[in-house]
């Protein structure tokens, strides 16, 4: 199954932040239902609009979102108190902690929660030496994180490894590194999942959706099986369903045809 984490409930987005601070339930519920309708497998919740309010905002959002859908949640936070607050309210099968990294503090804060709540986890291939400058650096952290998971008896199929997307506008040489990282994991740890935050690639260029869609296709070809995306973005889900059908992950193109019939694409 391709993991589709719907990204819109994110308080770093100005409009979302304002509505959430207004406690506009209807607005948020609409976003949840729309994202579900368009094919999300998970709803991401990022309550990081204001660090001092993150826990209370996470609580409000989790209660609202978990009531509006049966889909599992992806809890998007580096704050263990916020993660815990959300997980206490909703920890259905398939719940994801977004994310852990190879950084010491992130491991200390997040690993215990993955273990305690038995969740899946998105793992970013960066550590205390900062943003990985190339493919080798990503591979090194990937290997370290795999070892960490194994040490802690976390089966690799609970892990979604993210090889870090940089904008093509400023770091064009990194695009191949991200793709190479996904391919490395696909080949060497086939039981593990992969993940990217797609939209980062198009920061700084116009008409971002074209770049985002093109990147998704390249990544899926390299073995990607999950992404954090805006499912409402024009043509995004169409590109996703089409690519999955083309690489043989959609027998008889049934998902594609159904999505088309249901006007989801």
């Amino acid at each position, binding site marked *: 199954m391709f993991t589709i984490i719907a990204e819109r409930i994110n308080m*770093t987005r100005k409009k979302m932040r304002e509505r959430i601070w207004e406690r506009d339930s209807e607005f948020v519920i609409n976003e949840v239902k729309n994202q579900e309708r368009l094919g999300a497998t998970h709803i991401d919740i990022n309550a*990081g*609009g*204001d*660090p001092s309010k993150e826990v209370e905002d996470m609580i409000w959002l989790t209660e609202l979102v978990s009531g509006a859908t049966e889909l599992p949640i992806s809890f998007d936070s*580096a*704050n263990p108190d916020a993660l815990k607050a959300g997980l206490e309210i909703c920890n259905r099968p398939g719940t994801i902690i977004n994310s852990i990294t190879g950084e010491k503090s992130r491991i200390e804060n997040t690993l215990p929660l993955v273990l305690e709540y038995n969740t899946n986890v998105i793992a970013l291939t960066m550590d205390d030496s*900062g*943003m990985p400058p190339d493919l080798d650096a990503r591979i090194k952290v990937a290997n370290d994180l795999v070892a960490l998971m194994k040490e802690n008896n976390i089966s690799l199929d609970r892990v979604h490894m993210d090889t870090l997307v940089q*904008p093509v*506008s*400023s*770091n064009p040489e990194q695009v191949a590194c991200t793709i190479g990282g996904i391919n490395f994991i696909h080949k060497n740890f086939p039981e593990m999942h992969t993940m990217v935050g797609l939209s980062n690639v198009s*920061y*700084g*260029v*116009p008409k971002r959706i074209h770049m985002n869609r093109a990147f998704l296709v390249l990544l899926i070809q390299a073995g990607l099986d999950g992404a954090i995306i805006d499912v409402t973005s024009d043509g995004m889900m169409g590109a996703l369903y089409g690519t999955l059908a083309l690489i043989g992950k959609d027998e008889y193109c049934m998902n594609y045809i159904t999505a088309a019939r249901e006007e989801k694409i």
Partner: protein
Amino acid sequence: MSVLNEIAENLMKGQAPKVKELVQQALDEGIEPATVLGDGLISGMNVIGERFKKNEVYVPEVLIAARAMHAGMDILKPALADAGVESKGKVIVGTVKGDLHDIGKNLVCMMLEGAGFEVVDIGIDCSAEKFVQTAQEKDVTLIGMSALLTTTMPAMKSVIEEIEKLGLKDKIKTMIGGAPVTQNYADEIGADGYAPDAASAVDVAKELLGC
């Protein structure tokens, strides 16, 4: 078109080798280095800055314009030094502690250099000590701070507190920026200036340094 206009036009198109050639030509024609800088290079970066503010040009276009600026400066720097021309002022720019985002910071550095400032880029994940110590070492009177996470914004306050602690609030001014940063936040933490984008950062720097 005058050679100075040609310099600006080619800079805006990111034509680095051409800008280099034209700067040399301008100097050979006897144009004052300061004029080549101001009416050629800076003038071109200025237009890029205005267009960037309005989303008429995009990040890669700013990058190639900056590259063309550097190419021109390779030729111009010695001539400026000989003529005793000084920069508009020195600015330290860095991303705060705990934050690794650097694209915006890099764009600010480019735009400030493009406007004639001397920029000391101290990189990412910079502690308050690093900001302030570098300012003292290099005799700099303006610190620019970037943060892209709501969780790292408080580090900006730490830098300002460090400046106050050392009794340097009159001597060192601060300006802040980054996607989650606002004028309100700048007022709240006592920053002297705020800019919503790299091009506006130039305007704020000019205002704060009085040039």
